[in-house]
């Protein structure tokens, strides 16, 4: 159905796609796999008309096409669901669907549109209410709204960028069920993903990109996790994490009956009791939106505490400012790396200085020293920074995260709060981040690891707390519990603590 032949795309100094060929048949779910910076996004941006290829040809149903703009791509039946949804929150599902759509009259009948949207979603098993406003929907429902939106525009070729990154395991399963149904009805589905297990379980074919080139296309049935990993990174990576035995020291973080409000004024954290000791990793499991972000912000001092108490190393810091929390030795790797954790338009040196600047004794900055320290961190963690004077927004996701974590651990913190530290990273970068977190734990730091990947939590955590509806459902020992038990707690079942 779609063929991309010998696509080459150059950016200043970078060969983003080097003679990549890629084809998807109707009725097929095809995964596009690769490390960050492998050229997946560029390739898909070319297919959706955002970029023009420097060389190469795109054919749709055998006919060469020239996609000059996203509008051209839509006209050729190509639709994309982005990782960050492009929906207008106060509008309803149906209103979002007709937004920007051609052929809608000045005065339109929303009822009939609602009906056709409802019909379309029934046809594909996408359960969605056309008249509910977007802000009331869960992330999974919003994603379904995005899918209905592109189907409504007549998409025959659907591209989904990291579609399960924000979904619960159950929602992810449902999504693939829907995708399969769409494929059975003759659509071609392209899924950009990092999750090997998911890709192996749900797709028909996999194309692996590495360094801008296509490594090859394999049938999913005929491949294995090890083979795919080798194709992605070109070197064998240990998927098993080797961990030293836990060596707990004193209590670092204490939360007593702590409650805090969310952004909409509701209680997002209710009566949280949690202690973290030096030398251990405490994982927080839970479906996104159950208080994880608020918990991280409360600990970092970025969100006010309504009731309860917070102590670090025995000192009461319930009312502490972000600055005081930093001074108390609390590091924070936020979910929003580029924008909160790092400043996109500043360079690597300036970003390295972001927190250290508070410690400059005289109020003057010694750039020479900063340059030196930055160079050390870049070297130590093998961060690929072509030019330390360029804005960091030009770095790939893995390098950004290494820079961010490298900065956060450079001050030898007492407590590291990390939120989704591995999200969107490639296998190689993930491995680095994992081993850095374990190193910090072995050094004696307390680590609070918030994640949505159960495998990651089980592999790294010494204790695992489960959040649901802003409450701790229980704290368990990952070695003595199962995915299923944790899954039940994530769904709201309380468990007796045995960790």
């Amino acid at each position, binding site marked *: 159905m779609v063929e991309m032949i010998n696509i080459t795309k150059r950016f200043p100094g970078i060969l983003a796609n080097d003679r990549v060929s890629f084809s998807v048949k109707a009725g097929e779910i095809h995964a596009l796999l690769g490390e960050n910076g492998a050229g997946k996004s560029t390739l898909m941006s070319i297919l959706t008309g955002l970029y023009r290829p420097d060389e190469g040809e795109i054919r749709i149903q055998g006919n060469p096409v020239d996609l000059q703009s996203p509008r051209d791509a839509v006209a050729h039946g190509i639709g994309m669901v982005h990782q960050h949804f492009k929906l207008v929150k106060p509008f309803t599902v149906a209103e979002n669907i007709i937004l920007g759509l051609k052929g809608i009259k000045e005065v339109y009948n929303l009822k009939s549109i609602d009906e056709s949207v409802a019909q379309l979603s029934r046809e594909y098993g996408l359960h969605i209410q056309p008249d509910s406003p977007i802000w009331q929907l869960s992330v999974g429902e919003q994603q379904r709204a995005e899918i209905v939106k592109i189907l409504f525009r007549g998409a025959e070729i659907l591209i989904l960028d990291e579609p399960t990154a924000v979904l619960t395991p159950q929602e992810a399963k449902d999504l693939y069920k829907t995708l399969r149904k769409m494929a059975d009805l003759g659509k071609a589905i392209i899924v950009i993903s990092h999750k090997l297990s998911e890709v192996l379980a749900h797709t028909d074919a996999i194309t692996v990109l590495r360094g801008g080139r296509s490594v090859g296309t394999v049938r999913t049935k005929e491949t294995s996790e090890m083979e795919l990993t080798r194709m992605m990174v070109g070197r064998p990576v240990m998927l098993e994490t080797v961990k030293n035995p836990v060596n707990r020291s004193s209590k670092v973080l204490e939360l007593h009956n702590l409650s805090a409000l969310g952004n909409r004024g509701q209680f997002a954290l209710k009566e949280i009791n949690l202690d973290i000791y030096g030398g251990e990793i405490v994982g927080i499991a839970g479906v996104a939106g159950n208080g994880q972000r608020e918990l991280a912000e409360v600990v970092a001092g970025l969100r006010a505490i309504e009731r309860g108490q917070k102590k670090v190393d025995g000192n009461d810091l319930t009312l502490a400012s972000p600055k005081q929390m930093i001074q108390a030795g609390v590091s*924070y790797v936020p979910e929003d790396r580029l924008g909160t954790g790092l400043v996109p338009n500043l360079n690597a040196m300036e970003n390295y200085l972001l927190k250290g600047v508070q410690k400059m004794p005289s109020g003057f900055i010694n750039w020479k020293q900063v340059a030196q320290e930055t160079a050390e961190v870049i070297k130590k963690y093998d961060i690929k920074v072509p030019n330390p004077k360029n804005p960091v927004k030009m770095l790939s996701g893995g390098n950004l995260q290494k820079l961010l974590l490298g900065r956060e651990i450079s001050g030898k913190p007492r407590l590291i709060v990390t939120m989704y530290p591995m999200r969107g990273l490639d296998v190689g970068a993930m491995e680095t981040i994992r081993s850095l977190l374990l190193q910090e734990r072995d050094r004696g730091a307390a680590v609070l690891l918030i994640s949505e990947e159960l495998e990651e939590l089980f592999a790294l955590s010494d204790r695992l707390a489960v959040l649901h509806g802003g409450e701790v459902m229980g704290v368990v020992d990952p070695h003595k519990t199962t995915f299923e038990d944790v899954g039940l707690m994530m769904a709201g079942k309380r468990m007796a603590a045995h960790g």
Partner: protein
Amino acid sequence: MGNGSFSRWHFEKRETTSNLVLVMVPVLSVVIGLIFTGLFIALTGKDPLEVYLLMFDGAFGSAYGISETIVKSIPLLICALGLSIAFRMQLWNIGAEGQLYMGAFGATWAALTFPDWPAYQLLPAMMVAGFLAGGLWGLLPAIPRAYFKVNETITTLLMNYIAILWVDYLVVGPWKDPKSFNFPISPQFTEGAILPTLGTSRIHMGLVFGVVVALLLYIVLNYTRWGFEIRVSGESPAAARYAGMNYVKNILLVMFISGGLAGLAGMTEVSAITQRLQHGISPGYGYSAIIIAWLARLHPAAIVLVSVIFGGMLVGGYSIQTSGFSSTTVSMLQGAILFFVVGGEIFVNYRLVRGEKGGK
């Protein structure tokens, strides 16, 4: 294996922005602004080139012209430097004009209250009073901005009118010179309230203030903790908060300094130029300074250069009056330049490429 031939122009995001582009965008904006305004001059039947030459000659063609150009560029320079700090934090202070007037008011208060003080006491007192008055006028809209996110663009703009009318009230009311034959002016300042000038020219010590402030600003922004905080806060408030910086405090402080510098410009104007408070002490310095700060991309050294060019434009504007043009032709020119600078901003992040054919 071409995929069809086409030659449509379109924008493509730049991965990097070279320094050449950063310089060329404002330079070309000025050139295009000149051409654009030239079209209107041509409509009147005059040769635009001749008019521009006349302007240039008036501003830079004689020792007098140059000294007048520098005199005009002093308040522009000090105001633009102040604005550049606020703009760096993405605080859109449009109120330099009003802050300048309030600074003039503050300085005049000191000059009229302590007329007998010698210059070495009175001038610093006027500077402090001018800075404080301008600074408070900048701080006032900063408070609702910092605590309730009230849009400062509108409040600072509207407060200009209050400040200008306040000064008008003073010079027709309580501070009117009894010997002025009803002209709206304050009494003339005593000797101690007047800034020294360079030789016999009108170039005054304000020039030193401007250059020192530019230098200080450069050092503060690039080499101090606080300057770094300003840059981070401007780029990303979320990151500033995350890094433990006090965003609210910085908004207040930046707006105070931004207004204070405009106030200092007001002080130099009443002290060195008018030597009294009067109606219309500024022909819109505070507004031109906005354009200057943008053209200079907020860089202190570039602000010095652009201020002199804009000072020259003002002086050149007066000199073309003899050939039948209003000096407000210059306002039109400035407006056109700002228009093209803002429009040209897209080239900083994007480049125009021609859709090329596939194949080699």
